[in-house]
């Protein structure tokens, strides 16, 4: 398919761009296969380069022959374009609509983007499981790297290499996998050096209504316990939701079969509920009544802050079990690809100082999100402004970043990176010139040949000239566990992604420099 077929009017002069908190710009609007560009063709004036992939929805309005297109982006920015000429405006609008809803991954910009910088350190090679395992080996010999999933047949959403207890052979792993939703059998997520306790993650066990059990699964997770010790299973769902899951073949670990484990239920919302929350939250922020009561009740109704609190609380709980109770932990929800990852990754930020560095945080995202099979492409296909019917979209990753930001606010000297870094990740998760967040799993990424055909986000971010704006000047490394407060009075609304304030200039700059 040629992009040109979709572009009816490639260029219009005399277009006026309005952005919140910024002066208006008049210039020429150009449409390319992947970008909407507005340039005043003057030096020192900012140009707009907007990826079509970033556009969530558009609205058209007409006053006489002057058309207006309001572009609402997935990163929650809203811009307005005044376009002289009704026909031009309609053409532009329909082109944007078509170009922003292309379904095929291989038509996405990352496959066309060629970096203008020299790739010194290839981000695709930066965080390989073998390296992480080497670190683990230096601390303990209880674990091995299994290739049981090397052709992704045991678990399509897992990577090919997985860290499992040394004493469990691949055959048992296969059996345990058949007992877990999506084949996601328990694997190592984090090893706590201080006391040797571990955090594992999985998907729900397929106990079903008649209480099926699986000896290999029991053996697998028991193998992570020291003699005489017990562990905690943190189920991110309420007991009621977990019960209901039985009817669909899912379920939870029965005490009788997992005698050495104590199960705790938490109440992290399912992803479709989270998406509704984001839509309501953005609506509340756009309320023009300036009424205090309306704002507070809408904010409450969005449940956004409640979700932040619940996710953080669960992560603190997991961390507490490991560090304070000296117990190992298994975390799962239903699929083990959303709330599970929020909890395991946040717990590591609390426990492990390495995760609070830039490299460490990148490694965490690579390990606990990308390789662990969070379906980025499904979750980030649409955002709060989309008119499309929601499929499996959900701000799971945004909520995780929000939680990190909350910890960062409470420990402003403990992180090597700053808020800009989190915002940058949010933006790139939804639309990017880099291939990092494409696909839903390692298997999909391999099939798409992303590492050959696209540039990794890390290749760009880790350049010294880019890193500079992501560094936290107050950072002083400390080796401690950092316990955040989760009292509602301590949690703030993360305003920057919600476009409530003037954006720091950096965000715009990176958009320009990338093109």
């Amino acid at each position, binding site marked *: 398919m040629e992009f040109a077929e979709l572009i009816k009017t490639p260029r219009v002069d005399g277009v006026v761009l309005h952005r919140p908190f910024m002066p208006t710009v008049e210039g020429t609007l150009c449409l390319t296969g992947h970008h909407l560009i507005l340039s005043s063709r003057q030096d020192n004036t900012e140009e707009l380069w907007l990826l079509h992939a970033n556009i969530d929805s558009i609205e058209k309005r007409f006053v006489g022959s002057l058309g207006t297109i309001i572009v609402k982006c997935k990163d929650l920015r809203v811009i307005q374009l005044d376009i002289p000429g009704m026909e031009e405006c309609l053409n532009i609008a329909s082109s944007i609509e078509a170009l922003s809803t292309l379904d095929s991954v291989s038509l996405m910009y990352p496959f066309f983007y060629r970096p203008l910088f020299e790739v010194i350190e290839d981000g695709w090679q930066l965080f390989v499981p073998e390296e992480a395992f080497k670190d683990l080996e230096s601390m303990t010999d209880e674990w091995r790297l299994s290739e049981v999933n090397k052709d992704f047949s045991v678990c399509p959403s897992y990577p090919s290499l997985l860290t499992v207890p040394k004493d469990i052979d691949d055959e048992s792993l296969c059996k345990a996998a058949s007992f877990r939703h999506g084949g996601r059998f328990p694997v190592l997520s984090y090893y706590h050096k201080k006391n040797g306790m571990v955090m594992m993650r999985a998907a729900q066990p397929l106990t079903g209504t008649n209480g099926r059990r699986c000896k290999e699964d029991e053996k697998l997770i028991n193998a992570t316990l020291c003699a005489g010790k017990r562990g905690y299973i943190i189920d991110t769902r309420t007991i009621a939701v977990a019960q209901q899951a039985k009817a669909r073949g899912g379920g939870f670990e029965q005490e009788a079969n997992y005698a050495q484990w104590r199960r705790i239920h938490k109440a992290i919302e399912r992803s479709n509920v989270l998406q509704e929350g984001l839509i309501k939250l953005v609506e509340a922020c756009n309320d023009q009544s*300036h009424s*205090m009561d309306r704002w507070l009740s809408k904010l409450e109704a969005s449940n956004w802050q409640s979700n932040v*609190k619940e996710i953080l609380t669960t992560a603190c709980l997991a961390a507490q*079990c490991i560090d304070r109770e000296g117990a190992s932990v298994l975390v799962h929800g239903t699929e083990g690809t959303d709330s599970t990852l929020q909890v395991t990754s946040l717990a590591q930020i609390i426990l492990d100082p390495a995760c609070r560095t830039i490299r460490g945080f990148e490694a965490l995202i690579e390990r606990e999100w990308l390789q662990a099979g969070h379906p980025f492409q499904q979750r980030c296909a649409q955002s709060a402004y989309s008119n499309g019917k929601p499929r499996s979209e959900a701000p799971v990753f945004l909520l995780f970043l929000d939680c990190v930001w909350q910890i960062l606010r409470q420990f402003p000297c403990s992180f090597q990176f700053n808020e800009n870094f989190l915002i940058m990740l949010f933006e790139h998760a939804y639309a990017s010139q880099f291939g990092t967040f494409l696909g839903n799993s390692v298997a999909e990424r391999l099939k798409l040949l992303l590492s050959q055909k696209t540039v990794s986000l890390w290749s760009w971010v880790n350049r010294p000239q880019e890193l500079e704006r992501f560094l936290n000047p107050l950072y002083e490394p400390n080796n401690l566990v950092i316990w955040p407060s989760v009292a*509602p009075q301590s949690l703030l609304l993360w305003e920057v992604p919600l476009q409530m304030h003037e954006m720091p200039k950096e965000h715009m700059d990176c958009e320009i420099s990338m093109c």
Partner: protein
Amino acid sequence: MEHIRTPKVEQVKLLDRFSNKSVTGTLHLTATHLIFVESNSTSAQEIWILHHHIASVEKLSLTTSGCPLLIQCRNFRLVHFVIPRERDCHDIYSSLLRLLRPVSYDELYAFSYNPKQNDQQREEGWQLIDLAAEFERMGVPCDQWQLTDVNREYKVCETYPRDLYVPITASKPIIIGSSKFRSKGRFPVLTYFYQEKKAAVCRCSQPLSGFSARCLEDEHMLQAISKANHNSRYIYVMDTRPKLNALANRAAGKGYENEDNYPNIRFQFVGIENIHVMRGSLQKLLEVMGTRSLSMTDYLVGLENSGWLRHIKAIMDAAIFLAKAVTDEGASVLVHCSDGWDRTAQVCALGSLLLDPYYRTIKGFMVLIEKDWISFGHKFADRCDQLDPDPKEVSPIFTQFLECVWQLTEQFPQAFEFSEWFLIQIHEHVHSCQFGNFLGNSQRQREDLQLKERTYSLWAHLLSEKQNYLNPVYSPSFAESHPVLEPSTQAYHFKFWRNMYHQYDRSMHPRQSILKHVLTLKESNRELEGTVQALKTKLQTFGVSTSPLKPQTPPRERSHPPRPQSLILGAPLLSRKEVQQEEDEEVFGEEAREDAPASTGRERTVEGSSATENGYGELKGSFDSKNEPAVVTLEFGVARMTC
């Protein structure tokens, strides 16, 4: 002292407000303070509570561990003691009841507080703020405004200051006539002069208009104010009350200006609620915030139902209206409410703060409070419950003003010379009765009490520790580019002020403070520069010429500035005054202990995060001790799980 029956009780438990944590110690009762000293010798935190800060004492019903005593403070501290013997508890309780209800001014702490200054120092302290100089700074007196001596003897208006500024065309008969037509004689006078547009901000109380009464002198008075400003043909009259309240007042022979009788006025209701509504609102807010294991939903619903932020926003909206009228239209504004000492003070002070960058400096803010609150007779004694309280007179009017200023500091972080801890410290002392400034209800009463001879000024004290209250990101050039602040009125810009209402609930604060960190860096930078200078001088004495310093000093050495005394947000850098010092001990006790290894081991510690601290280990039912843990609780409200 005769009111103290039991000066000391041992084995008293102090319960944490939001967790199950408790510490044991000794309770001491002195003439001025209630003191709790933790018995654990390693941490030994101390809590000093000034009697004046105690709003209520409550004895709860007896439990197996003893008799609980709940003490609620005006600075939003809440302490929960459990005293082993009922008798001791009762003694403390009844002593406190007597001690926290002083019957005469002489019993207030200010009259016994002695910071070891001589008379001259004390006098200098009182001379720091000079309102005549302040009006001069605004450009008054001038060709349109003059000083009147009509109230020199407090004969026209008891609750106004002696020196008042009025339009030159307002003769004495007009002033006196007008004052008779205004509630409590509070006739229209100047409070701020916006020199650039010659526009005046004036204040008064409601007119005694009833349903139809008129007063020619009062009408003349408003006309005189109008005429004093050539830039505008009209003046705004802002009635800061809701219209309904103003209407109701008419039945009592009071009311508001009839636009037909006053030519050239634009009359406007603003809708700020009265002192009773505000008192109730704060009470609801505190109730919600004091809930243990508060859920996010209950927090947000409670915040909304209390109406507190709605009231804060109403005050801010009024001030913004005032500032816009003055700057955009160049019009003068006359502000009143009922008596003109609550809402009027809020709106005039906040409006002036928006208009004039001087009021956003430390000294300027003191001047502003001295002018619009102290001198114009905000009834601090009644509102803050200093003496012989009438519970219906108590209201957090001044607290709301401080909070509005805080909301502005959040929107304009560079615009203020001071940080929120300056505001919180002022709030602390409005209730402490430790300094003379806020005692009494009016200037006249303060003169009768001879406060300047018998007590010390808070302003001198605050200026002496100015260092602690500086805002590190303050930019004087911001004031040049933004002389007038134009805050957003979007509801989401108004936030809950955690550090005010949970000042003493340290578990809710950030564990590391940017403010403190930056201040420490600045301080250590200053010290290093001093060292460089000293070394240069030394070199010169040896006849070695010095070249400009290049970063030859290994940066390693510089990257470890002295560790901040505390990483907790807002702890002033240096020690505060004597009483506060003890409280600091309490707040930073843990830090102090961690200090020693930190300086040698080069390892930074984080509040509440070292291995030995804070009772995370205090989990009910850990695995090794018990087979079936029922509940696991986390400190700091972190998490609560029920299995």
